[in-house]
């Protein structure tokens, strides 16, 4: 399992260290992701964010991988990959809107090829192969990156996608985030395989296992995979070995299925702390410059939150929007029904108010 820096920040592979600016960039993105995760919990408890799946502790797995892409590449994230989407440039306000269940969270910026978070498991994988293939056929050097969990890698779609990508030499980078759990099911009950990166062998494509809590390592292997894909070398499967310390969602209670012994040791492997210690030791960051960074990030988040707060609530008939390019006669009729119903209910509500 590749590591570039140890959990205590010490350099293991000096030859693989990215340049200082990249290291600082990765740290900033991890901090942004963590800030989202931490503020998200608070906002959820305040009723200002809906149920969302936390990813705190998986920042290196998401940031280090997504940071290897450019805005011309595709990103197919699962519900847990907020950190990856933010890294590629999904605006925080849109991301908040998504987890607030606002349609504004489904409108992806025109300059990004990032899909809304996928809720059904594994369906995104074959789609990423198609997007990658399309880029190749159109003569670009763009790639597609898709995320999945250890649980998701049991689905047939995962295996079909790997096979297709290999057979068709699609420029695809598959990230398999092995965070130890699929809701209550530990990976050892999910599969007898102990090294999920080796699943690539069965499809004739490279498989790489990397410390998913080491942002420099995830970045390094993903860059290599992206480069290989761009230059016609085909797909790669990258297993990022990490851990979901947090519950499956903010509403889940992991004490039902997990003990403290399961979690033991993972706090000490925290990806943010690891890179932080490294940057401080190398003199690339000081306590003071970090404080500025954190203040920046907090301000950016609060501004985004204000923007998300300003998005209007959807109107009732909006539930029928975007089903077809041109609404069918049936949808037009259904829209009229909703509008009439809405008017009637608003009038009834006003009547109540006037009576009161």
């Amino acid at each position, binding site marked *: 399992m590749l590591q570039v820096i140890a959990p205590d920040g010490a350099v293991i592979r000096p030859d693989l260290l990215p340049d200082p600016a990249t290291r600082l960039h990765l740290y900033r993105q991890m901090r942004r992701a963590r800030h989202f995760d931490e503020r998200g919990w608070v906002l959820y408890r305040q009723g200002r964010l809906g149920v969302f799946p936390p990813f705190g502790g998986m920042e290196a797995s998401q940031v280090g991988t997504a940071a290897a892409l450019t805005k011309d590449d595709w990103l197919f994230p699962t519900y847990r990959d907020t950190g990856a989407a933010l890294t590629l440039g999904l605006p925080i306000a849109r991301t908040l809107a998504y987890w607030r269940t606002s349609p504004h969270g489904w409108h992806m910026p025109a300059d990004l090829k990032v899909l809304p978070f996928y809720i*059904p498991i594994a369906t995104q994988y074959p789609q990423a192969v198609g997007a990658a293939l399309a880029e190749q056929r159109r003569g670009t050097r763009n790639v597609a990156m898709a995320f999945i969990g250890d649980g998701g890698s049991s689905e047939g*779609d995962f295996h079909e996608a790997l096979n297709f990508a290999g057979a068709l030499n699609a420029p695809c980078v598959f990230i398999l985030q092995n965070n130890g759990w699929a809701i209550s099911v530990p990976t050892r009950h999910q599969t007898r395989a102990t090294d999920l990166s080796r699943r690539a062998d069965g499809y004739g494509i490279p498989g790489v296992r990397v410390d998913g809590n080491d942002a420099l390592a995830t970045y390094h292997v993903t860059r290599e995979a992206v480069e290989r894909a761009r230059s016609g070398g085909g797909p790669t499967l990258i297993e990022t070995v990490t851990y979901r310390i947090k519950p499956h969602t903010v509403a889940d209670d992991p004490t039902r299925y997990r003990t403290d012994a399961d979690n033991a040791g993972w706090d000490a492997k925290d990806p943010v702390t690891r890179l932080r210690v490294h940057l401080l030791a190398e003199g690339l960051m000081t306590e003071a410059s970090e404080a500025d960074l954190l203040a920046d990030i907090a301000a950016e988040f609060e501004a985004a939150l204000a923007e998300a707060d300003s998005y209007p609530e959807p109107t009732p008939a909006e539930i029928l929007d975007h089903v077809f390019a041109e609404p069918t006669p049936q949808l037009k009729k259904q829209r009229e029904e909703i509008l009439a119903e809405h008017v009637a209910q608003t009038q009834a509500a006003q009547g109540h108010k006037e009576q009161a």
Partner: protein
Amino acid sequence: MSAPTTPAPHPTTHRTMTMVAAINDALDVALGADNTVHIFGEDVGVMGGVFRATDGLQAKYGEARVFDTPLAEAGIVGMGIGMGLAGLKPIAEIQFAGFLYPALDQILSHLGRFRHRTRSRYHLPMVIRAPYGGGVHTPEQHADSPEAILAHTPGVKVVIPSTPTDAKGLLLSAINDPDPVFFFEPIKLYRSTKEDVPVGDYRIPIGKARLVTQGDDVTVICYGGMVEVAQKAAAAAQAAGIGVEVIDLRTLVPMDTDTVLASVAKTGRAVIVTEAPRTAGFHSEIAAVIAEEAIEHLRAPIVRVTGYDAPYPPFTAVEDVYRPNPVRVAKAIRQVMNY
């Protein structure tokens, strides 16, 4: 195991239960009565299911009979088919009905036609349980009502309870049925009401509708999560002097057409309520049956109150627009009355 369904015993004692507790109780009874019964799916073991429907069953019956599978619905159903072929009674849980889709190949290609394609040499006594429907603000795809897809698949039965007692009685009948049964559980009703449910092996036959309320003017046909909605609308109509007969179908396949037709013959008016999308839903089948067999009794066109032809909205603020509510049902009742 191909023995016909045994007649329902007469229970003498009751216990107060929510629907999810009643389901758990039915599974407990089934596991206790027959060691060929096996329960499996995602998170059904230690966790007891995301809705706790299988809570405590692994602890009681062991990991061989109640077990977590890898995360793969096609695998769950396909494996269940093999287990059923080889002499077990598989009860699979699909975590949400909206996640049934990866398994559709196994269901459409095999589950429904195995008896037919082996001339009854093999049959599949399999039950697939899946929470379905909206009303509780779930994320995308967690609120789907795909019952029509299954009802349109020859060879599978479709059962949808609306009360704790029915959930227990119908589930035990489903488990004892020689053929595959889809058992959709309305998420909205899992914990919303409690009821005195018979203890022990209590069964309600598959294929018999339930008369929820009686009335002479309008027949409202519904099932699952829509029964309480229809009941509220019926109560309001009743207060305004309109007699509403609410029929809870309980079973879509086979459908109790006798009860539906007898009621429509009496009232001459039919309103059908479902939260599934409008086009090509099971409600359309009900309307077709009424049109074919009772048109001479109709005093007004049949009215459907349904979801819309759009994906179920994951937008909390407007979710309730999609799902029929008592106001919409009441309006449909007025519409057929005033025709």
